[in-house]
C-alpha cells in the first residue's frame, strides 16, 4: 500500500494527456484523496509535446513531488523533451506504448535503471476497443486505475459526464477502452506495489486551479469590473470572469492592450467599484505607469501577475518567480504597493480576498504574485466556507464630511475617506499630479513631502500582519528555511522531512512580500545563524530584498534556480543537512567560556 504516488505521462499534443491527468485527479478527489496535477507543454498551439505529473496522497500535499513512481510514455521523443520535469529513477515503474518498437531493455533513458519496465499495447487496445488511437489516454486511465486500485466507478462517471454530449456510442467506446486498460492491469500485476492506501475520511474535495480560483475569489470579494488583455499564463482569469462576472452584475472588458486594461480598472475604481486586472511579466511592464497613477490618486485595485519565465517573452508556458523585484521596485517615485504571493492554487482564494481587502482599506493598488504553476496546476482543496469570509470596503465620507469634503485630508492613519462620482458633495479632482488635501495640483516641496509621508505611513500597520506569514518550528532553532510562492510548497514539505530527521530547523514563508515586515523577519532570524532561502529565480530575489531591509544572518545561503528547473523537497533537505553540519562545526569552533 502507498500513501503518496507520483505519476507522470507524456505524449503528443493530440493524445489527450492533460485530460487523462484531470480525470484521474477528479476521480481521486471524489474519493477524498489529496492531489496536485501540473501540466507542461511545448510552445506549439496544436501538436507538439504535452505532459502532466500527478501526485496523489492520503494527506494534504503542497507540491508535485520529485522522481516519478509511475512514468507513462506514449512515445519516447515527446517524453524525453520534458527532461527533469519527468524524472525517472531507480524506483520508477516505466510504462510505454509497444508501438514505439523499443525493447524493454533498451529504453532511451541514460544512466537510469528503472525498477520495472512494461511495454503495453496501448494504441492497439485503443483501436480495438475505442475504435481509434484517440482512446489511448482512456486506456492509460484504465491501467492506472487498475494498478493503483482506485477510481473505477469515479473515472467511468467522469467519462460519462465529459462525453455525454457526444452521444451514447462515443461514451460506450470510451468505457470499453477504460475497461480494457483496467483488465490489462489486473492481468499484469506490477512487481512493485502501486496500490493506494485508504483515502482520508474527510470526504470529497474541491478541485481548483489558481487562475480560476482567483477569478472566483474576486467575485466573492465583490469585484464588479475586470479589464485585461490576453497573456499566457494568466488568461484563464479573464476567461472565467468573461463567463461568470456578468451573472453578478459585473463587467468584463477585453481591452485593446495591457495599458487600457488596467486603465479601465483605474477608471472603474474611481467610479467606486472593486476592480481587478491580471497579466504576466510583459504585461506588468506595460501596466507600471497606471499602477503609479493608482498609488498617487489613492485608488484601490488588484493586479495579478501570473509569473512566467522572463525577461521579455522568456518562456511563456513555464513558471518562474523572477518578477519579485519588478513587483516591488518598478514604480517611479517614492511608492509602496503591497505585494502578496500565494503558496498554492488553493491559497489563491484567501490571497485574492486579502488583496481586495488591503486595496480597499489602504486605497492602493495591490499586486498578487502567482506563477504558472500556481495559476495552472490543478489540486484538491478543502470546500470553502463563504460565510466565514470578512470583506473590507473603502472608507466613505460621512454626510458631515461631505459638507466640506477634503479628499486627501491628512489623518492620523494616512487614510482619507474617498468619495466617487455620483456622490453629492464629494466632487474632487483626482490626479497623477501631486496635489494638496483638496486635490488641487501643487509643485510645493513641503506639500509633496507631506503627501509622500501620508501615502507611505499608511502602510505601517500592514507590516504587523503576522497572519500573512507561515511560521513553523521551535522558536529557538538555529537553522532557518525561508521560501515563498509556489516553491514554498516544496520548502514546507522539506521542512517537515528535516524535522522528522531531527534537524533543529524552523520555517518562514511570507505571503506578504512587500512592504517588508522587518519585525517579523528580525524575530525569526534572532535565533538563527545559518539557513537557506529557496526560490525559483536566478538572482535569489527574495534573499536580496530581505538583505535590503533586514539584518539577515551571514550564514544564510540560497537555493535558487531559473524557471522550469524543478526543485525537490529531497534536494532542500540535503542542503539543510549540509548546512546543519556546518552549524555543528561553528559550534565546535566557538571558544568555550572561562
Amino acid at each position, binding site marked *: 500500500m502507498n500513501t503518496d504516488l507520483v505519476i507522470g505521462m507524456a505524449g503528443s499534443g493530440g493524445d489527450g494527456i492533460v485530460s487523462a491527468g484531470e480525470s484521474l485527479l477528479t476521480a481521486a478527489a471524489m474519493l477524498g484523496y489529496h492531489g496536485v496535477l501540473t501540466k507542461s507543454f511545448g510552445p506549439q498551439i496544436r501538436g507538439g509535446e504535452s505532459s502532466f505529473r500527478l501526485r496523489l496522497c492520503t494527506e494534504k500535499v503542497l507540491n508535485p513531488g520529485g522522481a516519478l513512481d509511475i512514468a507513462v510514455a506514449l512515445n519516447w521523443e515527446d517524453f524525453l523533451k520534458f527532461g527533469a520535469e519527468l524524472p525517472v529513477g531507480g524506483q520508477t515503474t516505466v510504462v510505454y506504448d509497444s508501438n514505439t518498437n523499443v525493447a524493454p531493455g533498451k529504453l532511451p533513458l541514460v544512466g537510469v535503471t528503472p525498477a520495472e519496465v512494461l511495454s503495453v499495447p496501448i494504441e492497439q487496445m485503443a483501436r480495438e476497443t475505442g475504435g481509434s488511437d484517440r482512446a489511448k489516454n482512456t486506456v492509460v486511465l484504465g491501467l492506472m486505475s487498475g494498478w493503483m486500485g482506485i477510481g473505477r466507478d469515479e473515472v467511468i462517471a467522469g467519462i460519462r459526464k465529459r462525453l455525454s454530449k457526444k452521444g451514447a456510442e462515443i461514451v460506450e467506446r470510451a468505457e470499453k477502452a477504460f475497461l480494457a486498460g483496467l483488465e490489462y492491469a489486473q492481468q499484469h500485476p506490477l512487481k512493485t506495489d502501486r496500490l493506494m492506501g485508504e483515502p482520508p475520511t474527510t470526504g*470529497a474535495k474541491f478541485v481548483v486551479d489558481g487562475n480560476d480560483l482567483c477569478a472566483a475569489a474576486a467575485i*466573492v470579494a465583490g469585484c464588479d469590473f475586470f479589464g485585461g488583455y490576453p497573456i499566457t499564463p494568466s488568461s484563464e482569469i479573464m476567461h472565467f470572469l468573461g463567463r*461568470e462576472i*456578468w*451573472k*453578478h452584475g459585473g463587467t468584463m472588458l477585453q481591452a485593446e492592450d495591457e495599458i487600457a486594461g488596467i*486603465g479601465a480598472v*483605474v477608471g472603474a475604481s474611481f*467610479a467606486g467599484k472593486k476592480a481587478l486586472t491580471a497579466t504576466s511579466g510583459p504585461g506588468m511592464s506595460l501596466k507600471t505607469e497606471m499602477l503609479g497613477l493608482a498609488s498617487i490618486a489613492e485608488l484601490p485595485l488588484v493586479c495579478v501577475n501570473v509569473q512566467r519565465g522572463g525577461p521579455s517573452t522568456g518562456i511563456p508556458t513555464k513558471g518562474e518567480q523572477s518578477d519579485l523585484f519588478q513587483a516591488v521596485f518598478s514604480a517611479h517615485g517614492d511608492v509602496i504597493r503591497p505585494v502578496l504571493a500565494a503558496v498554492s492554487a488553493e491559497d489563491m482564494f484567501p490571497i485574492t480576498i486579502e488583496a481586495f481587502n488591503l486595496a480597499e482599506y489602504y486605497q492602493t493598488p495591490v499586486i498578487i504574485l502567482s506563477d504558472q504553476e500556481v495559476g495552472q496546476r490543478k489540486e484538491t482543496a478543502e470546500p470553502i466556507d463563504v460565510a466565514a469570509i470578512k470583506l473590507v470596503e473603502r472608507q466613505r465620507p460621512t454626510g458631515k464630511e461631505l459638507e466640506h469634503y477634503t479628499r486627501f485630508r491628512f489623518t492620523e492613519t494616512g487614510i482619507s475617506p474617498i468619495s466617487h462620482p455620483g456622490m453629492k458633495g464629494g466632487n474632487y479632482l483626482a490626479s497623477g499630479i501631486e496635489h494638496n488635501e483638496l486635490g488641487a495640483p501643487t509643485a510645493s516641496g513641503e506639500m509633496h513631502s507631506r503627501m509622500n509621508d501620508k501615502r507611505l505611513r499608511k502602510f505601517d500597520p500592514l507590516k504587523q500582519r503576522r497572519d500573512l506569514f507561515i511560521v513553523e518550528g521551535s522558536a529557538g532553532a538555529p537553522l532557518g528555511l525561508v521560501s515563498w510562492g509556489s516553491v514554498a510548497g516544496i520548502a514546507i514539505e522539506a521542512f517537515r522531512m528535516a524535522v522528522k530527521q531531527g534537524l533543529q530547523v524552523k520555517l518562514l514563508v511570507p505571503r506578504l512580500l512587500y512592504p517588508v515586515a522587518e519585525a517579523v523577519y528580525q524575530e525569526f532570524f534572532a535565533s538563527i545563524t545559518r539557513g537557506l532561502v529557496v526560490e525559483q529565480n536566478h538572482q535569489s530575489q527574495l534573499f536580496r530584498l530581505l538583505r535590503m531591509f533586514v539584518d539577515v544572518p551571514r550564514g544564510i545561503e540560497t537555493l535558487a534556480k531559473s524557471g522550469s528547473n524543478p526543485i525537490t523537497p529531497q534536494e532542500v533537505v540535503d542542503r539543510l543537512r549540509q548546512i546543519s553540519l556546518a552549524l555543528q562545526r561553528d559550534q565546535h569552533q566557538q571558544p568555550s567560556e572561562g
Partner: protein
Amino acid sequence: MSTLTAKPIQDYTSKDYKSDLKPIWCPGCGDFGVVQAIYRALANVGRAPHEIAFVSGIGCSSRIPGYTTAYGFNTVHGRSLPIAQGIKLANPELLVLCAGGDGDGFSIGGGHVAHAIRRNVDMTYIVMDNQIYGLTKGQLSPTSRRGLATASSALGSMESPVNPLLYVLGYGAQFVAQGTPADMSGLATIVEEGIRFPGFAFINVQSPCVTYGQEDQMLKAQKATMQTLESLGHDPADRLAAMNLAQAYGEKLYTGVFFRQPEPGPTFERLARERHEAQRASVSSRADVLNAFRVKKP
C-alpha cells in the same frame, strides 16, 4: 435633425460648472474658450456636477477637468480614454467627458481612439488640437504640418501630420465634429450635441497655442477663415461627404458636425445591461461561483 431641442434636466448656469482653480494657461490660450464652451454646454444639458466625470490625459489642455466642478480625473499621458470607459462601464448613469491635446489623443494615446470608437461607450471626447506640444515647450506634435521648425525640429519636420477627422471617420465614429474657440457659441452647441449623442462622440477643437503656435492658427486668423459646414450645405448623415470635407484638415477650417449617425448603433453599456439581465437569473448569490470547483460522488 437637431438634438438640441431637449430641455435641461435642471436649471444650471455656466457658473455652476466653474471651479475656483485658476488656469495655468497662458493669457490668450484657446483653451479658455473651450472650457467656457463646456460650461455652457453642461448648463444646457443640466446634469448636476456630481453626476459628471471629466477625464483627461497630460498636457496643457488636460488640466481642464480641474477647472470644472465635476468629478475630475487628470490621469497619465495618452490614457484618458480607457480610464473614462472604465468609469462609464462601472456607472453608466454618469455623464462622462474626456479631453486632451493632439499629442495625448493622436500620438502617445493614438492606439486607444480606434477602440473607443468600435467599443462605442457613451461619452464625449474633446481634443484640443493646437498642432504643437506646449507643456513641454514647443516640440512637434502628431498634427504639426510638414516642414515646421520647432524646438525638436530645428531643421523642420520630415513627417506629414495625422488628420484626426479622417482618422476617426475611417474607424467608423458615429459622431464627428470640429469647432474653434474663435466661435465660442458655435463650439458650445457642438459640445452639447456631442454630449447628447447616444454613443462615443468625437470633437476636434482648433485651439491655438499663443506661445508656440503659428500666426495663421490664432483666433483672429481663424475668425477670418472659418466656414460652417452648414453654410456649405453639408449633410451630416453622409459619411463619405464628411470624409471628403475632412480631407481639407490643415488647409481649411470647417466647423460644425461632419458626421452624425442617423440611427446610432448600440452602446457597450446597453449591451452590458442586456447581458446582466439575461445572466442574473442563473445565480442566487456570489457564493454560487464556487460550484465550478465542487466534485460530486457518482
